[in-house]
């Protein structure tokens, strides 16, 4: 795979990349937690507050109209990006967690005791806990697709778990802790054969892989803006129209109503039914800009370049010695979750931070995965298209120093 990423030009788009941390040039390898923000997105935020900050929809004045147009344009950008059939199927949320909770809450009215829902062992806590709560509420049973030693889903077990009782399946597209890309095409089509709906948590995939929701035939796909070079506090839930009509609203309030009397309230149509209250207007607009920016680079270029970084980093890191990498699937995004024999991940993270390197340490909100490997956590380095091989060299040097200090 070849790419057309002009790395110097790309890095110049991100003001934060030129700062220093603890006296060293910042090496930002915590992209799976949150991505950095390009100048065009920062400019969009500033422009919004300087030029047309106003509440949207229903306003008769010009400013409100401008803000509404920009916000709805962002929705259209997101629709086109995910290839949703209709704009009404794109619901703005505060992020992936909000999107999952919205769907889980809606399904409380669709499930009964005896029904089964399937989740995977590779999930983030935010794609486990809402479903546990849903099962407690409805009496449905939660089944778990186990994982294998390489950090992949045990698909044989998945087929065995599927039955006529299965009503819902939720799996992440990419594991946040390990980077494994899950075979969601198969999961979706197999679940559909049993009449079950499927929610895919796309938070970790969306920055690297462009999902086509119609081609996938997925029922729900959720993402966060801040992992895609957008701001925090905004995300998108894609839902098939038929499902969004069927599910009850999540929160009551302004924007989501049609008629209100004390006797009876009727709800607004899609997408407003699920968008109670004043939304994150600026965030939505900036998210749209971020999507335009990423598409300007091209997702094929991004994936090819990041794959190069992953291969290089894996080789260099393994050469340090005593390194255990968790998640060794051939299908993974640019994430390396690792430990050094006999050293606590927290110690490594602390030392390399002193050298300007930002990684994440801990259980990555995926304790079941850590329990599987019987480890307290890992060091996770996650790369983005604005990272370089030179940064990987600095990171590997820092890990070597940490290893010497801590052994």
């Amino acid at each position, binding site marked *: 795979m070849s790419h057309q990423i002009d790395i110097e030009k790309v890095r110049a788009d991100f003001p934060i990349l030129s700062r220093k941390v603890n006296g060293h040039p910042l090496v930002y390898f915590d992209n799976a937690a949150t991505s950095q923000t390009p100048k065009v997105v920062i400019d969009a935020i500033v422009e919004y507050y300087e030029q047309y900050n106003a509440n949207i929809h229903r306003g008769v004045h010009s400013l409100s109209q401008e803000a509404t147009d920009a916000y709805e344009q962002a929705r259209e950008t997101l629709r086109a990006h995910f290839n949703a059939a209709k704009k009404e199927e794109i619901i703005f949320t505060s992020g992936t967690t909000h999107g999952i909770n919205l769907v889980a809450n809606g399904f409380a009215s669709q499930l009964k005791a005896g029904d089964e829902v399937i989740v995977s062992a590779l999930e983030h806590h935010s794609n486990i806990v809402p479903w546990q709560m849903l099962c407690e509420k409805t009496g449905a049973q939660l089944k778990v697709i186990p994982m294998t030693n390489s950090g992949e889903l045990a698909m044989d077990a998945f087929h065995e778990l599927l039955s006529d009782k299965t009503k819902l399946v939720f799996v992440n597209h990419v594991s946040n802790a390990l980077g494994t890309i899950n075979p969601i095409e198969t999961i979706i089509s197999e679940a559909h054969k049993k009449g079950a709906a499927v929610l895919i948590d796309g938070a970790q995939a969306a920055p690297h892989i462009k999902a086509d929701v119609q081609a996938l035939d997925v029922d729900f796909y959720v993402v966060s803006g801040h992992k895609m070079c957008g701001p925090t506090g905004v995300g998108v839930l894609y839902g098939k129209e038929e499902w969004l009509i069927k599910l009850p609203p999540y929160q009551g309030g302004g924007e989501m109503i049609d008629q209100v009397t004390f006797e009876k309230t009727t709800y607004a149509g899609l997408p407003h039914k699920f968008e109670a209250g004043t939304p994150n207007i600026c965030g939505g607009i900036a998210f749209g800009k971020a999507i335009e920016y990423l598409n300007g680079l091209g997702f094929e270029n991004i994936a090819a370049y990041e794959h190069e970084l992953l291969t290089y980093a894996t080789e260099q890191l393994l050469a340090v010695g005593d390194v255990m990498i968790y998640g060794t699937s051939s299908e993974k995004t640019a994430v390396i979750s690792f430990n050094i024999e006999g*050293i*606590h991940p*927290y*110690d490594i993270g*602390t*030392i390399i931070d*002193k050298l300007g390197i930002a990684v994440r340490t801990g259980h990555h909100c995926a304790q079941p995965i850590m329990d599987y490997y019987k480890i*307290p956590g890992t060091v996770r380095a996650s790369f983005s298209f604005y990272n370089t091989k030179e940064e990987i060299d600095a990171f590997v040097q820092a890990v070597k120093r940490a290893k010497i*200090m*801590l052994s």
Partner: protein
Amino acid sequence: MSNIKEIQEEIVDEFAMFDDWMQRYEYMIELGKSLPLIDEQYKTDENIIKGCQSKVWVHADMEDGKVVFTADSDAIITKGIIAILVRAFSNQEPKAILDANTDFIDEIGLKEHLSPTRANGLVSMIKQLKMYALAYQTKVQ
């Protein structure tokens, strides 16, 4: 036996010998190795200090009117931090522990660890040591 203030000054003097953070951290790791280790029977979930990414266990005993701390951690830097605290606060009377301030942490160049949001839980450790002191003081009265 020196009082808490004197021990803290001693620690500050030791750390002042180092020029950079690496030497300070290396020394802290050394101190971790000299930590009076907690008896295995007290390494229970109840004795784990919450708020740390690594596990930290602390146990306290009362000997001749003084609180004696033992501790351990699965991370070596955290072990160094708790070792510094144990050295400063162990073998002291409950009231002295409760009255002691912790400005010396700042002076030895570990200020960054004092932030309550920092995942290592230094603040929780100090709180826990003081909780033990408070419990023993209440018992004595």
